[in-house]
């Protein structure tokens, strides 16, 4: 298959104009010894053949199981109109909106998306998006380091372990001290100990709500402590929960960040996802990435442009606030369309359904005698302690068509669980997630199968 429309005859005309007799002559600057003798890639396929190959590969994935797996990345309902609108190629075949007069669609959409993020989090400003939630944690920490001139970061272990892994990678060469603060054995925030290590040497404290174990909290008291010492308080949030839960701004946070995948973006085997960020306006000039702003033309027509570009790499080069250039604009547009459709009532009812069904599921699982439960202050995720290895349980449940949840020993060893500080304390812990897509019937089937698996 080829997408080259220039015919051989037209090629000849073009070569003539260039004053050369062959295309090879145009590549004469490449030394002969550097030209590869062979370029051993497979022969090209027709569209029909390519589709057949891809359909076969897709069929080797099993996306049909009933899922109780979340852990920061969720299986939520996506209205059909989201896919229909995102397919408009005026959006998806455009580049970053440098030429604002012919990019008002993208620019206004970014402005409205920023507005949505600000409304969700209660913050003053936002940007056109970051790669994912983990990148957002790193970028928020960079903002705090730059704003405070300090180089110590505290991150609670209730923050998604994937974000923390990414943060460790990104600061490896940066002379930044990272303190990962332990949670209690049930996964809840160890707040008194946390307050003790907040000091005038700390740039940022990062918390998550609901935390990785699904536990909800009010962090207002931690933020008060942060303010006392000029520490930038950062909260990672689950946007679906925000129509019920206290917003980061209501708790006093300076920066709110998160993974926006749950806002109308399919699970996609890990990406593309959406990192979102909101901040107080005092931090505007520390913000990474693109920002759209409202302005007008000389006739007074309202319009939108990319603004505050003096922060960015194409102007500041090595002094830029961040190297981020391409972001996840189309995913941000997805989130924006999703939020527009769901609206006030839809978001509230999705959150209420997630929570109610999770409460039901937790209660049902709790009635299985051999299963122990921990903290009940949850949104739509909770830890269960099984009488058997959680990985083994998940494996047996896969055979029955269920993705049972995340075995926590993947990410935690010794910090949580009944015998915390022991190497294997998290081995029997499973993190279970329920979204609005699960029906009562599915939950009942799940609990029945779970009981059979663990009581065998």
């Amino acid at each position, binding site marked *: 298959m080829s997408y080259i429309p220039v015919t051989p005859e037209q090629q000849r005309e073009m070569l003539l104009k260039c004053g050369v007799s062959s295309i090879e002559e145009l590549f004469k*600057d490449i030394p002969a010894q550097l030209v590869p003798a062979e370029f051993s890639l497979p*022969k090209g396929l027709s569209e029909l053949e390519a589709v057949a190959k891809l359909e076969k590969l897709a069929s080797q994935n099993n996306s049909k199981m009933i899922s109780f797996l979340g852990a920061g990345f969720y299986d939520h309902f996506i209205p059909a109109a989201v896919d229909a609108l995102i397919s*408009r190629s005026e959006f998806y075949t455009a580049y970053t909106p440098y030429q604002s007069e012919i990019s008002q669609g993208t620019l206004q959409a970014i*402005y409205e998306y920023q507005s949505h993020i600000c409304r969700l989090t209660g913050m003053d400003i936002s940007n056109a998006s970051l790669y994912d939630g983990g990148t957002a944690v790193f970028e928020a920490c960079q903002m705090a380091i730059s704003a405070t001139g300090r180089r110590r970061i505290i991150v609670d272990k209730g923050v998604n372990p994937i974000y923390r892994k990414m943060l460790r990678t990104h600061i490896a060469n940066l002379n930044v001290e990272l303190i990962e603060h332990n949670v209690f054995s049930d996964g809840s925030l160890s707040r008194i100990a946390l307050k003790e290590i907040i000091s005038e040497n700390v740039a940022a404290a990062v918390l998550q709500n609901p935390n990785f174990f699904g536990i909800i909290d009010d962090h207002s008291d931690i933020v008060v402590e942060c303010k006392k010492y000029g520490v930038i308080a950062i909260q990672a949030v689950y946007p679906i929960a925000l129509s019920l839960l206290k917003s980061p701004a209501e708790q006093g946070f300076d920066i709110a960040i998160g993974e926006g995948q749950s806002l109308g973006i399919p699970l996609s085997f890990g990406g593309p996802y959406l990192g979102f960020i909101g901040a107080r306006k005092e931090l505007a000039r520390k913000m990474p990435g693109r920002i759209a702003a409202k302005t007008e033309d000389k006739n007074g027509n309202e319009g939108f442009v990319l603004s505050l570009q003096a922060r960015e790499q194409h102007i500041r080069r090595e002094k830029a606030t961040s190297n981020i250039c391409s972001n996840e604009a189309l995913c941000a547009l997805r989130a924006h369309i999703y939020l527009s459709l769901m609206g006030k009532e839809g978001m509230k009812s999705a959150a209420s359904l997630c929570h109610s069904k999770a409460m039901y599921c937790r209660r049902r699982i709790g009635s299985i005698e051999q299963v122990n439960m921990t903290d009940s202050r949850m949104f739509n995720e909770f830890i269960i302690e099984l009488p058997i290895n959680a990985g083994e349980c998940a494996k047996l449940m896969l055979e029955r068509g269920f993705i049972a949840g995340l075995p926590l020993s993947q990410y935690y060893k010794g910090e949580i669980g009944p015998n915390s500080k022991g190497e294997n304390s998290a081995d029997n812990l499973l993190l279970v997630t329920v979204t609005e897509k699960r029906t009562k019937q599915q939950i009942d089937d799940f609990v029945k199968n779970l009981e059979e698996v663990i009581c065998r």
Partner: protein
Amino acid sequence: MPVIFSKSVRGRTGVSLPENDVPDNVSIPENCLRTSPLDLCELSELDVVRHFTALSRKNYGVDTGFYPLGSCTMKYNPKVCEKAAGLDGFANLHPMLTALPDGVKMTQGSLAVIYELENLLCNITAMDAFTLTPMAGAHGELTGMMIIAAYHRKKGNNKTEVLIPDEAHGTNPSSAAVAGYDVKSIPTDPATGLLDIEKLKEAVNEKTAAIMMTNPNTLGLFNPQIKEIAALAHSFDAQLYYDGANLNAIMGKFRPGDGDFDVVHVNLHKTFAAPHGGGGPGSGPVGVKKHLEPFLPVSRVVKKANGEFCVCDDYPDSIGRVAPFFGNFLVNLKAYVYILMMGGEGLKKVSEQAVLSANYIMRSLKDHYDVAYLKTCMHECVLTAKRQMENGVSALDIAKALIDKGFHPPTIYFPLIVKEAMMIEPTETESKEAIDAFIEAMVEIAREAEDNPEALRNAPVSTPVGRLNETKAAKEMNVACL
């Protein structure tokens, strides 16, 4: 056009969710609840559909028309790639399935795509191993720099500087800085448009961690002295980094690995036809030579002897994680489909036509505009509006006039070292008719610059808004409707 929030009508809804079918209700502790209700839109589905349809009509994409935005490789995005990415088996797969025992059995199709695409990219660039995890070009640069930093740490090298040509994309110095390096800019030889090797020799020393190069560079010129530059870098154990932004020029003609580059990133959303999405998502896979493979980010996909794919995180020297899972998988998938369809011969033809079209434009416009370097270019050419500036017509004015003639303008004011630069990259997917129409428009504008410069300064006049006041935007900082 009013923002969406102003269209909200109390009591209107755009979705219907199932009724609660469980006996439980919301029971959240008082202190965790919102104190004020979340203020979102109240719109019907049709309200929303019309709003976004109207917005889309105020946009210009590759599907709208010619988009010769230099350095961005705005080629046609085949629809079949979108179709593949929409297949349920790919779109609705949870990445953490692979963390469950036997979960990889449920994801063999996606893991095969990752494994095979890594191999294809190794082939195209002559590198030994690839990671698909970086989620944009700049993210690839940062990942590459972090790999280099880990390599030097492991060897106990005390390296603090990265050398970068002054014509490079802004992301190069920025990514090097985010990775913790000081940046030294190396000038371009004004006579050749290529890196000044003598200046490079003066700058490179024991402190040099890496040299970042784009080849062909942002002037669209191929640097034939690349082996010499590589030898110079390697004599100080500095690593040579290849910015793949311009890979569309050289497929099948030059492989960075053969030029002794140690690290390369490629932009799947440029060369390999994944759409740009109005600013992303992109994908910036990174390839390395053998000696850097241990430092690649996790997770990595491994093929077992029995042909089964598995996910492995057990690489003690790995820099760790730059993405939550496998990078922008669906973007990678689109590029995979594209490469499968092109094949080796097809990719070679892509570069040949891209280079021919750029030279054709340069030769057709050289009498009407000054050319930064009037010699054979690769996939893009850089003109300047120097001559037009004598009549007070700038590159910006020319760009805006092109909009009125129905074209997306080229990249302007970049590279920074060329005054009034206009960087034109036609790509191979544009027909000769489209290119000729663009040339004709540019010639007309050159004429208007002499006859009626004032009109150009007022362009565009055909768009929903005229030139917008950027100073006002930065000063008032109205970035959200609250």
